């Protein structure tokens, strides 16, 4: 991981990209079998993720947004191979890791890290902060001597804004925001090229949320090659952090775009409803906003609707929507939508 002063060049990200991809997920499917009866026969599949393709550029933040049960966390866990994909490929830094055996996976995992949602449950209460942060260094045998490791842990604590002299304290002595900083320091320990942030701020109070968001953004500016997959249900938070956003609904990506484009010009009816559901802390803006209130609830992934999985709740659905499964189509550079009602501009007239 190189250090470079100054800011990253965001504009460069939106040109035709020639650099390398840190992560490519191709047509990922993760089904969980439902077993019943004495012989535990498989009776059905829960289609948690059903054909998701994503790509993350080096140094990019990909936001993954959607409601509970849409498959965001399943995608994340399949990337780090906690779950073995049912179908599809996961390619990390040019290596197909989908079927790698555990032994060969270990060096790959050194380059990936995970920040968890719950700053209480994700830290071992019996280990000191320094020991938690140093654990990846021990596991991957990064340093030979204890002194070197100790120095690295102190350095990491400084990077995330914790006083290194607090290293001997235990998780219960820290506040929620500080615990999340410990989690971030642990993720940074082995210089990963990809960090998966799974709802890193949703358990925190608003005033602390901003501190952690700013820290994650600052780290990403400091370490130019660091990429994030940033998962959250809060669209405003995702918009703030991401260079590109993918909106998920019931195991599918329904729309991807840059944050500005997604919020100013959402094209998928679900994205529109999701945006309109997020209240803006400004009563003057709220007075003028259109509110789309969806009916019903997210269907079960055990028995998803045919065709487009959103058609039962969609305000613009036509009968065809229950038959055709839409695929992601590029409607503008850097803007893809999976909806048969949204066609390319040149096809609209015909």
């Amino acid at each position, binding site marked *: 991981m190189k250090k470079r002063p100054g800011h990253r060049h965001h504009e460069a990200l939106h040109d035709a990209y020639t650099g390398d991809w840190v992560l490519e997920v191709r047509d990922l499917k993760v089904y969980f079998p439902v077993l019943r009866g004495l012989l535990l026969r498989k009776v059905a599949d829960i289609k948690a993720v059903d054909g998701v393709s994503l790509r993350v550029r080096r140094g990019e933040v990909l936001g993954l947004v959607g*409601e*509970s049960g849409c498959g965001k966390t399943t995608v994340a866990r399949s990337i780090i191979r906690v779950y073995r994909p049912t179908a599809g490929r996961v390619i990390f830094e040019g290596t197909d890791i989908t079927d790698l055996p555990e032994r060969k996976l270990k060096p790959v995992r050194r380059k990936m890290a995970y920040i968890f949602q719950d700053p209480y449950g994700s830290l071992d209460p019996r280990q000191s902060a320094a020991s938690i942060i140093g654990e990846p260094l021990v596991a991957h045998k990064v340093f030979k001597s204890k002194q070197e490791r100790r120095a690295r842990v102190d350095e990491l604590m400084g990077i995330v804004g914790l006083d290194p002299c607090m290293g001997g304290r235990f998780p219960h002595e820290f*506040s929620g*925001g500080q615990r999340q900083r410990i989690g971030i320091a642990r993720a940074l320990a082995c210089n990963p090229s990809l960090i998966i942030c799974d709802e890193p701020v949703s358990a925190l*109070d*608003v*005033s*602390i*949320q*901003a*501190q952690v*968001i*700013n820290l994650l953004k600052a780290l990403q500016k400091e370490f130019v090659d660091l990429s994030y997959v940033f998962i959250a*249900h*809060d*669209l*405003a*938070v995702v*918009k*703030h952090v991401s260079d590109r956003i993918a909106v998920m609904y019931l195991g599918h990506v329904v729309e991807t775009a840059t*944050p*500005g484009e997604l*919020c100013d010009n959402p094209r998928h009816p679900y994205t529109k*409803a*999701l*945006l*309109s*559901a*997020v*209240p*803006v*802390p*400004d*009563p*003057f*803006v*709220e007075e003028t906003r259109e*509110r789309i*209130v*969806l*009916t019903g*609830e*997210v269907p079960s992934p055990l028995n998803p609707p045919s065709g487009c999985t959103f058609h039962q709740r969609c305000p613009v659905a036509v009968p065809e929507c229950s038959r055709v499964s839409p695929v992601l189509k590029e409607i503008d550079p850097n803007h893809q939508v999976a909806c048969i009602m949204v066609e390319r501009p040149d096809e609209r007239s015909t």
Partner: protein
Amino acid sequence: MAILLEVRNLRTQFLTDDGLIKAVDDVSYHIDEKEIIGVVGESGCGKSVTQLSVMRLITPPGKITSGQIIFEGDDLMKYEANGPEMRSIRGAKIAMIFQEPMTSLNPVLTIGRQLTETLELHLKMGKSAANRRAAELLDMVGIPCADTRLGDYPHQFSGGMRQRAMIAMALSCNPRLVIADEPTTALDVTTQAQLLELMKALVEEFHSALVIVTHNLGVVARYAQRIYIMYAGRIVESGTCKDIFRSPRHPYTMGLLNCVPRIDDREGRELEAIKGLPPNLGRLPGQCAFLPRCEHAVDRCRVEPWPELQAVADGHHTRCFVNPPGMTG
């Protein structure tokens, strides 16, 4: 409009091993009939304890040490917390919707039984009448096949449906005041939008007043007419929704507004985080509790005790010496 509930100088304290926690310290507020107000603050600021105090649901080691809770002209403090008067008010005239619908519904009773219990107790309905009314209520909050779902247990409902059932239960006796304590925090945004729209429509239909307790500034901006901002057990700023959002005068309110990401932000806006941590309520200084985190503090803040709420405009109060001019636009 007539005042429905007025809380005066309420103090609720918890005597714990760590000392005396002043969870609610000298809080005064009111709500008019048919009004929607928002009580905003972060965890531990005393917003929920204030509402539980109004319901007289504070149990030891907690204690309401002083104050008046005047509801429809009667001071609720003169009644026993578990006496017949309070029991006839709780659930009937003042109803509460809790944050976590899984833990606030009884898992071993059917949804129908939990609804009819209130109806039979407060409205003295017979079994079949109560059942019919319960089905109507479930139907009203948008639960399909209400008749058959009355026999379901809470675990058979989704999170959103459980909260709908809670709303049905809260409104079942046509209460004058509904207190919703973080009603949608555990839910997804589209479900949150559905439920808040539903609650707003129903309190209008039932002519009830509504207190929304939340940490989400967006929710109060959308629904509340007036807002109280709480910090460290006290109200630090109060005013109409538009005053507070357009010209906040307390540094904490300003900090909150500057640190939340907004969906309509221009690209590249930096979040201005409030530095430091919320204070420990057991060891509050005599001065302003926000002082260690405040960007606008002056010498006076460091020597004098926390000031009283003072008016900065008509109906707009703040607890600050400095009253830095609010943000514009």
